[in-house]
């Protein structure tokens, strides 16, 4: 069956719930053009060597997964134009089994087979991944952080650090040569950061998925960095028009930059999440009646059209349902990922569901 991106997202979410103690969950990716018989042969070959598996429980689980896969695949006359993806396995505790075969919205590019403790959904995730990515770069003279915003996620790609000597000697004639060497070290570091940033961002840019790069860091280094040609000229053109003052590096620095960027990051779900979680906490702390939580209360408020922002944890089973309700109720809906520091608290305390009201409704 052919699936669109929306459907694929749901399938991925479902597959990610499956976890096993042994390597019994089968994932298979077949690119177009490969003869079905080849794939079947490979699977049969795999089945024949399962006898080597020592643990009986594991052995039979893997065998069942393989048999299901072979059975399903043997009904396919030809690998479709976009390729084919298949997952099979069972839950050893409940005995419940799962088999999914699909034609993805984008072409499968790798031939990949694995049995593991989880389903390998990463290639599918690539396909549904955001086409609206914002690159993030924090830079100062001896440290840098490269990251990106992808939907409701914040990803740190790299943290770079260099050793630049401090100012420990007294300044004088003899000092000047040394000072110049230090400046060269700083330039070398900027060069390295530029190379790394290009390597991370250019492919995304060429795929047309990188919408902008947000640059920040303490005081002036960021201007010096952008003034020269450390960053590829194509990337330089999409650097967002305002540079952000941020003192720190790493995850803390990136979060601070995103919060401070304000309107520069309009329509970025992660930026919205940070902002609205803060706002939700504020209403909670002020106890002004604008924070709403509890399934019944939230549903009720949504039905009344009183919810301005709805936050739903991606860990909830019924995310789609709430997205639907939010749409009907005219609420802005955000799916909370674990990349937001408060997510664990939010999930535990509010069962992963809460909102901000337009006005108080309960007194």
């Amino acid at each position, binding site marked *: 069956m052919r699936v669109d991106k929306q459907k694929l997202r749901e399938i991925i979410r479902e597959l990610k719930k499956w976890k096993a103690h042994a390597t019994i969950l089968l994932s298979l990716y077949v690119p177009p053009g490969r003869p079905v018989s080849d794939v079947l042969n490979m699977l049969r070959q795999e089945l024949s060597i399962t006898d080597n598996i020592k643990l009986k429980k594991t052995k039979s689980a893997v065998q069942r997964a393989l048999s299901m896969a072979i059975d399903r695949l043997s009904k396919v006359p030809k690998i479709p134009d976009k390729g084919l993806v298949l997952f099979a396995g069972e839950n050893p505790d409940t005995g419940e089994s799962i088999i999914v075969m699909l034609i993805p919205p984008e072409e499968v590019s790798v031939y990949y087979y694995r049995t593991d403790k989880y389903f390998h959904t990463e290639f599918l995730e690539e396909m549904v991944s955001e086409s609206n990515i914002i690159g993030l770069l924090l830079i100062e003279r001896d440290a840098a952080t490269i990251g990106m915003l992808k939907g409701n996620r914040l990803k740190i790609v790299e943290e770079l650090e260099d050793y630049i000597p401090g100012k420990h000697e007294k300044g004088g004639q003899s000092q000047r040569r040394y000072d110049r060497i230090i400046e060269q070290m700083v330039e070398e570091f900027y060069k390295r950061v530029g190379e790394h940033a290009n390597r991370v961002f250019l492919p995304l840019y060429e795929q047309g998925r990188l919408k902008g790069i947000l640059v920040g860091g303490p*005081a002036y280094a960021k201007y010096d960095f952008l003034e020269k040609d450390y960053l590829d000229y194509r990337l330089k053109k999409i650097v967002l028009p305002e540079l952000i003052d941020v003192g720190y590096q790493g995850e803390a620095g990136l979060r601070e930059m995103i919060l401070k960027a304000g309107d520069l990051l309009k329509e970025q779900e992660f930026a919205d999440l940070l902002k609205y979680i803060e706002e939700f906490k504020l209403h909670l702390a002020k106890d002004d009646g604008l924070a709403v939580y509890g399934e019944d209360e939230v549903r009720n408020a949504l039905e009344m059209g009183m919810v301005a922002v709805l936050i739903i944890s991606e860990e909830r089973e019924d995310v789609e349902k709430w997205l639907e309700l939010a749409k009907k109720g005219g609420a802005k809906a955000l799916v909370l990922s674990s990349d937001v520091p408060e997510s664990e608290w939010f999930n535990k305390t509010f069962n992963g569901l809460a909102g901000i009201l337009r006005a108080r409704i309960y007194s």
Partner: protein
Amino acid sequence: MSSVPQKPHLNLVIIGHVDHGKSTMVGHILYRLGYFDQKTLQMIEEEAKKMGKESFKFAWLLDRMKEERERGVTISLSYMKFETKKYFFTIIDAPGHRDFVKNMITGASQADAAILVVSARKGEFEAGMSPEGQTREHALLARTMGINQLIVAINKMDAAEPPYSEKRYQEVKEVLGKFLKSLGYNIEKIPFIPVSAWTGENLIERSPNMPWYTGPVLVEALDMLEVPSKPVDKPLRIPIQDVYAISGVGTVPVGRVETGVLKVGDKLIFNPPGVIGEVRSIETHHTKIEKAEPGDNIGFNVRGVERKDIKRGDVAGHTTNPPTVSDEFTARIFVMWHPTAITVGYTPVVHVHTASVACRITEIIAKLDPRTGKEVEKNPQFLKQGDAAIVKFKPIKPLVIEKYSDFPALGRFAMRDMGKTIGIGQVLDVKVLEQQKK
């Protein structure tokens, strides 16, 4: 100056809002005391003129980085040695710019005393005292990092309105004094000295332009500082401030001894990385010494350790009693500023000794009455500005932190987020990281 220092040693950090004249003051004092010759100053003056930054000539004696000179701001800490009648000083010139508060805290963590420089110029004093101002933030951080002795230099008196106005001096003193008192400083003991770092008035010699001021001039006030007691009996702890690789010598970490005694030949461990080396030599004030004590700001050459193995924020101790790497720690905190609420998951940057590491709040154990310290609520859902609490933190990277009661200098910290200091804390308990135990 090359003989073994006989005078007691003090670490002095210069703090205050951006552009209030810290570097100018340090440069000018050192120049007047003969630590820079006239030729050096002349050369710098010419360079500064060329860049249209003549007013920064004294500051440039310390601000040597290109970025610093082009922009006229200090970015990283400068360490200078000088002596007065009574003391040897390591003077630490801190940056005032808000994006470099992180560096200022490192400097403050190493100091026994501070000079808080505040500009008396119209608007400048007010900017420093605004809620966003660094006069305020630095004073709080100095206090948090354990600096109990403070000197206030009310600077730029030559540029006050009118110049050298006693009225302006009194106004600044009053407003600032009140604030310092609220931080717990004994303001009776703090000299408020009207100076001009630019003209040099009241730095070393008394200014004829301010006859109304009868207190000590700056250098006199320095000699009125006291040497804090030295915890020599405790296990050795040296938070690392920087690491050099000197050709022909080897790896030279620098830092201030907080507790214990370091001797040539000692076997050291640097944590968190856990690398071990042997002390070959110790140096302070460009003089080789056989042993270093609490308060000494030293460079020490270690065999068996590479420069890239260690960095700022690591802590050296004897292998027999290594610095504690924490998996989790419990602390009493006070929330000074937060626009919304602090919940579990919140991850501010924690500054402790020379380290800064983001730490995640994993549990809010209890809310306390800020005045009595008594527990008022167990496991509250959130904390707000003004709340005191007992909280558990998990550092997101390995971090050396100690119980405040064991090692005060390694157990008091500041929390920062969104470019501001949001709170302060003291460590009550530390859970040791598994890999360190064994």
